[in-house]
């Protein structure tokens, strides 16, 4: 266990036996049926799986939008899984950046105002947040589009504004849910390239996708099926346990 302890030193996400249970009438549905996952600082992870596999449930818990039914979720040692609503809101605001498939920009705000939004909830002064929002927009290549509203921007540009917004409070972790799902091939590639640059600068990145090409560009791929991790390969994945190569796979 010496190796595991060494890895834990720069742990970001440490999940143990995580379960998410929904009751639908008399039926009990396990969206997550006991997941163990360890993600270190600076990783670039793609979570893949068909719809209903539990990847979205995991994302919601990782991002602090939802709480696990059972199990432990520690984020850099913080017991995020046990936070109340207000603690979670503050934690999301400071530590997590969200990127959504449908951008989720507020249509009546300009690009700049959209990027300022998380900083407003962080209580940052108008002058400072404006300065930082401009810096973020410049970083994603939209320094000249500050005053544009979402409807005046292309899909790729909108997603860049959304990324700038996600970066505004300098989060530790960027969570992207199908970030290229609403984009064409070319602009999707540009967004992925931007992600790779951000990761290269040290930002931890987790993206959820069902597109294998997108997943392939991440350094590590975690596959979900029926609430279990069925495959975990790439940089940072746990070493295969002793015994038969596929012994860690749960029986179907």
């Amino acid at each position, binding site marked *: 266990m010496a190796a595991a302890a060494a890895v834990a030193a720069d742990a970001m996400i440490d999940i143990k036996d995580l379960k998410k249970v929904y009751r639908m009438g008399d039926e009990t549905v396990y969206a997550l049926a006991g997941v163990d996952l360890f993600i270190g600082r600076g990783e670039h992870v793609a979570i893949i799986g068909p719809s209903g596999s539990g990847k979205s449930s995991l994302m919601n818990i990782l*991002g602090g939008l939802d709480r696990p039914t059972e199990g432990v979720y520690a984020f850099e040692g913080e017991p995020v899984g046990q936070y109340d609503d*207000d603690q979670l809101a503050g934690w999301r605001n400071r530590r997590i950046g969200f990127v959504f498939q449908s951008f989720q920009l507020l249509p009546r705000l300009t690009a700049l105002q959209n990027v300022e*939004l998380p900083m407003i909830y962080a209580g940052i002064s108008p002058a400072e947040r404006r300065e930082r929002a401009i810096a973020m927009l410049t970083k994603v290549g939209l320094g000249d589009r500050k005053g544009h509203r979402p409807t005046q921007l292309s899909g790729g540009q909108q997603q860049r504004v959304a990324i700038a917004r996600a970066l505004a409070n300098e989060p530790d972790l960027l969570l992207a849910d199908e970030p290229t799902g609403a984009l064409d091939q070319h602009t999707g590639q540009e967004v992925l390239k931007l992600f790779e640059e951000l990761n290269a600068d040290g930002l931890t990145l987790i993206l959820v996708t069902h597109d294998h090409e997108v997943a392939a560009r991440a350094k590590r791929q975690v596959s979900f099926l029926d609430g279990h991790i069925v495959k975990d390969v790439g940089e940072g994945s746990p070493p295969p346990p002793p015994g038969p190569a596929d012994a860690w796979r749960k029986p179907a």
Partner: protein
Amino acid sequence: MRRIDLVRFAGGAIASHPMRSALTALGVVIGVAAVVMMVSIGQGAQSRITSTIRGLGSNLLIVSPQFNQRGGNFANQGFQGGGITLSSSDADAIKAQVTGLSAVAGAVRGNTQVIAEGANWSTRIEGVTPDYLVARDLEIGKGRMFDENEARQGRKVVVVGQTVVTQLFGENTDPIGQRIRVGKVPFEIVGVLTPKGQSATGQDQDDMMLGPLDAVRSRVVGRRARGDVVQQIYLKASNGDQLDRVQEDVTELLRERHKIQPNSDDDFQVQNMAAVLESAQQATQIFTVLLGGVAAVSLVVGGIGIMNIMLVSVSERTREIGLRMAIGAKRMDVLLQFALEAIALSAAGGAIGLLIGWAGAFGIAKVGGWPFAVGSSAPLAIGFSSLVGLIFGAYPAWRAAQLDPIEALRRE
């Protein structure tokens, strides 16, 4: 987060739908305008009634005949004397036997035609004893009042109001010593009353004349009048505290003089003008509260309009709420944002409604001829409309704050 940013969020949301915001606020505008107008009308009416009653004179009691059912119909009981049982001797008895009075004046009145130098005017004449001036708080501007001797001798002298002077002789003439014909009887003008202007009810208080009771009674208003009847006896108590006691004494004396059996009704009534004033004020107060209450219903309707639009807005902006929560808005931040939006809409409507209400109340006061009363309508209007916004905005805001961010973000 900073409070000023919450205010900006609320303001931005209102400004982004100007038409919808204006229509929503309109409900409150109408409600507040109605409340302000109604309360102002009530207060105006009250002050008008008060000044009308005060204008009759202070510490005043008025004794009038009370017509009983047995006396036939009202028309037959007119001045001819069918039912009138008050007389000058009653007035004399009151003066002699009731203490605490500073003036006792019997009076008759009628309408008559006056003619002077070919000019001709129709006016009101009152036949009174000299005390009447004291009882009614009237003053002589020019000349003098006729005295007791003149009155007793049946001298044909009159004191006239300024309007009568103007109509008969023109603006700047001195009418003292002029002879005029009242009906068919010549009278001499000995004095002019100090002008009182319009009464609160819009009546010209200077369009009248006063003559000695006997002369006016016998020669002008009721030649067929029986004996020494009077239509009213005006009593002025020397002190306001005495009014109730004087009223009792007068009633007792007159019952005795009129030989009224213990179980029978009075054939006269003694009105205490202070009591009349009090009950009139109470009545208008109730009237004001009632009008204000009816208007307040429209304010509630306006509040329901706000609630309706806020619920629509929360439902439309579900994704926005979800996003705000995802990027760090606490439930309280969302709650305050929507509550502030409702309060701002409502308070803005209240401010506009206040201005419209003032304008309306001012206009109605002009038409109604009473003073324009603002009272405490400004803080009330703003306070109430904000309260309406708070009450009716609370539920939509709470709904917004209770949203689950995951569900909200998924909403189309």
